[in-house]
C-alpha cells in the first residue's frame, strides 16, 4: 500500500514540475544565425504547437510557422518556433509573432562575424528532436556578451505566489478537518461509529 502512495505522489509531483517547467518563461543567451518559415503538419505532437486563433482559421491542418535558428554559448544549436499564443494557454498573450521575426532577423550574427551579437531569447516549452517539438520564443533583446546573468523575476514571483496560495489553502483545509474531528469527539459524536 505504501508503494501505491509513493507512486501516486511521485507521478503527481512529476506532473506538476513538468507542467511548470514547460509553461514558465526561460531565458537562453544565443546567437541568431537564421530565421525561416516552414510548412508544418502537426500530428501526435499537436499539443506542442500553438495554432492560436488570432484572426486566421484555426481548423486548418497545415500551416506555415516561423522558426528562429540559433547557437548557444556552448556552440550547441537551438531552434525556436515563433507562434502566436493568442488568448489561449499558456497565457503569454503573444500576438506579435511577425514583429518578433523581424527583430530576430535583424539581429543575425554568424560564427564568422567579427563582433558577434548575442541576444537573450525568452521562451517557454521544450526542444525534443524525436517528436519535433520546439520551444516558442516570446521576446528577444540584445545583450553585451554570452555570459550575462538573467534573474528570472517572473518565475520567482509566480512560484512564490503559487507556494503561498497552496500553503494558505492547505492550512485552512487542515484547520477545517481538525475542527470537524474535535466536534466529532464531543457531544455530536457520541455513539457514532
Amino acid at each position, binding site marked *: 500500500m505504501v508503494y501505491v502512495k509513493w507512486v501516486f505522489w511521485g507521478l503527481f509531483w512529476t506532473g506538476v514540475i513538468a507542467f511548470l517547467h514547460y509553461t514558465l518563461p526561460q531565458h537562453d543567451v544565443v546567437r541568431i544565425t537564421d530565421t525561416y518559415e516552414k510548412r508544418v503538419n502537426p500530428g501526435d505532437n499537436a499539443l506542442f504547437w500553438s495554432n492560436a486563433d488570432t484572426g486566421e482559421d484555426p481548423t486548418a491542418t497545415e500551416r506555415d510557422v516561423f522558426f528562429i535558428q540559433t547557437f548557444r554559448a556552448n556552440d550547441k544549436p537551438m531552434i525556436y518556433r515563433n507562434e502566436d499564443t493568442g*488568448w*489561449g494557454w499558456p497565457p*503569454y*498573450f503573444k500576438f506579435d509573432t511577425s514583429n518578433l521575426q523581424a527583430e530576430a532577423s535583424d539581429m543575425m550574427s554568424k560564427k564568422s562575424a567579427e563582433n558577434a551579437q548575442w541576444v537573450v531569447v525568452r521562451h517557454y516549452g521544450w526542444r525534443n528532436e524525436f517528436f519535433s517539438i520546439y520551444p516558442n520564443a516570446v*521576446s528577444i533583446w540584445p545583450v553585451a556578451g554570452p555570459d550575462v546573468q538573467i534573474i528570472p523575476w517572473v518565475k520567482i514571483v509566480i512560484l512564490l505566489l503559487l507556494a503561498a496560495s497552496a500553503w494558505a489553502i492547505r492550512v*485552512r483545509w487542515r484547520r477545517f478537518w481538525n475542527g470537524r474531528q474535535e466536534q466529532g469527539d464531543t457531544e455530536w459524536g457520541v455513539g457514532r461509529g
Partner: protein
Amino acid sequence: MVALMRLLIFGLIALTVLYLAISWYSRSVRRRKMERDWEEAGRPGDRNTYIETGMAQYEQSLRKRLIWLVYIVPVVTVVVIIYLTNFM
C-alpha cells in the same frame, strides 16, 4: 474570436466561483469572530442581535469590498502582460 470568447466566458465563470467562495469564507470568519467577541465582552445582551449587528457592519466594510479585487487583479494582469509581450 472563438478563443477570446472562450477566455472571457470561462474566466468569468472561474472568477465568479472564486469570488463566491472567498466571500462565503470571509463571512464565516467574521461570524466566528463576532461569536468570540460576544463571549469575551461578557455576553452583553442577546447573542443573535450582537452577531447580526456585527454582520451588518461587515456588509458595509472595506474588507468586503476588497473581495472585488478577485475580478480586478486578473484583468489588470492580463492587460499588463499584453502590453509587455507585444508593445515593449
